[in-house]
């Protein structure tokens, strides 16, 4: 099993897409954390409260976990590409000739996608730390990186991003077509789902909304409260994991059982 995982990671490392996506994570994270740190505490006027102050623990968590959503979005795409690319470039036959037991291939790919999520999240955390801390320092605020609440939140983004990688892979197996899978992942899972969650909250059905993948992952970080009803962080992680397992299992029992022609 270890050598299958190593082979999957080698596949990722020997093409260029993984670092292209990583560059996207780095760029968006830097922008996100600088913007959050630069605007913290602004907007308060005439007794009306503005954004939480830069010293507010929730605000600090927001600044230093700014890389979470870029990291999980891009690793979702990477996870999808790991499997759909095999069908697109017709390399799936090679993979299945070496490992005819198809579930073993899926497990190795799930693990590889999760590990890539880990890598993306760690890089994003470092970028957010550097960009956020320097912005706060320039504004003359304490950096606040040492706070345990920040460390905890950042640690959970790493866990959450790893799960998103596996989620992307599950989605890719289920929807074998590369473009369809990526579009479904980004538009469906991230954009439409946010809209759906908003609607559910409006009609006071937040109970359902909090079990959607994106809401569950917000719960994992629990940064600045969105006002929505959220799960505790560990339940968020479990819910996200369940989504990933659901997609991967559904994909394994449909696409992967099919004839490879």
């Amino acid at each position, binding site marked *: 099993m270890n*050598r*299958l995982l*190593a*082979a999957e990671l*080698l*596949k990722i490392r*020997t*093409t*260029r*897409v993984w670092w292209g996506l990583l560059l996207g994570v780095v760029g968006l994270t830097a922008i996100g954390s600088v913007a959050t740190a630069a605007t913290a505490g602004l907007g308060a006027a005439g007794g009306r409260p503005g954004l939480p102050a830069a010293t507010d623990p929730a605000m600090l968590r927001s600044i230093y976990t700014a890389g979470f959503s870029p990291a999980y979005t891009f690793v979702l795409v990477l996870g999808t590409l790991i499997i759909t*690319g095999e069908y697109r*470039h*017709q*390399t799936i*036959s*090679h*993979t*299945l*000739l*070496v*490992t*005819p*037991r198809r579930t073993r291939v899926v497990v190795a790919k799930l693990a590889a996608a999760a590990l890539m999520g880990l890598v993306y999240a760690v890089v994003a955390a470092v970028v957010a730390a550097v960009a956020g801390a320097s912005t706060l320092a320039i504004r003359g605020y304490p950096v606040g990186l040492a706070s345990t609440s920040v460390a905890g939140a950042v640690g959970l983004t790493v866990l959450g991003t790893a799960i998103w990688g596996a989620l992307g892979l599950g989605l890719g197996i289920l929807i074998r077509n590369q473009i369809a899978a990526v579009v479904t992942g980004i538009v469906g899972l991230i954009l439409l789902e946010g809209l759906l969650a908003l609607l559910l909250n409006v009609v006071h059905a937040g109970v359902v909304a909090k079990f959607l993948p994106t809401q569950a992952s917000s719960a994992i970080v629990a940064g600045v409260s969105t006002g929505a009803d959220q799960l505790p962080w560990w339940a968020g992680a479990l819910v996200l994991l369940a989504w990933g397992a659901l997609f991967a299992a559904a994909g394994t029992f449909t696409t992967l059982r099919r*004839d*490879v*022609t």
Partner: protein
Amino acid sequence: MMPVVDGIEITTEGLTKVFARVRAVTDLTVRVRPGRVTGFLGPNGAGKTTTLRMLLGLVAPTQGRALVGGVAYADLPDPTRTVGASLEATSFHPGRSGRNHLRVVALAAGLPEGRVDECLELTGLSGAAHQRVGGYSLGMRQRLGLATTMLGDPPVLILDEPANGLDPQGIAWLRGFLRHLAASGRTVLVSSHVLAEVEQTVDDVVIIADGRLVRAAPLAELRRGAATIVRTPTPERLADALAGAGLPRPTPAGTPGAWRVPEVLPERVGHAAYAAGVEVHELYTETDDLEAVFLSLVTGASPPAPLVPTDPAPVQP
């Protein structure tokens, strides 16, 4: 050369595949022997690739079994060290180098990384090892496919249309390569839709058309031809002699005085003529047009005799 590997047989038993509504392969029972190169022949769409994919566990048979050494591919304890397969409609990631493609397979199969460079060397790809596959020619991709099959140094090789895209030098090289593998006791199964392409390479042929077995035989048997040519100054007497021996009627064979008897064994024709005292100037087996025999087998029609005139040639006195 002495066999260096234990021979492993490929067998199919009543192998059948029905896709949606299309019968791709029907009741195919075949035995492919070690130590020989077997040509798996048939026109495009005859079901060759589907059969090979069933053999390799990529396509599930509707009925029947396909086995390598008596075991289904998916149940082989070490597939990469048992079977090397290169399939059509299988490709490589265009952004990955040839060497990295082999490294991935070697790593997943638990093969030593040293095999990667050996196989690149073996297939003449060392110079392009670090180039991205996107820049490879069709011939280079074929070589990379072949290099992949050789990684585990397997006793069984299954190659789908390996001559496609190779230049004449490449085809000559491939021929030597496959002959060498068979000589070492390996089982080599090579598919092609052009008999001429593999005619000089294969020992046995398995011919399929419309998903059904048409003929499985040593090539020499196929080469034996479908007819005997007789040259005689007295064709009427020959016709009588043949009729007396229960052999079919001769028809003009194109050249003056030559007659074509649709009987495979020349000795039977010769004996009939001798027994009736018919003067014979020439007697030989029609062998030259293997492609015509192949075509006739896959289309079900009788092979067109070379240059048959529509009218009987005038009998020379």
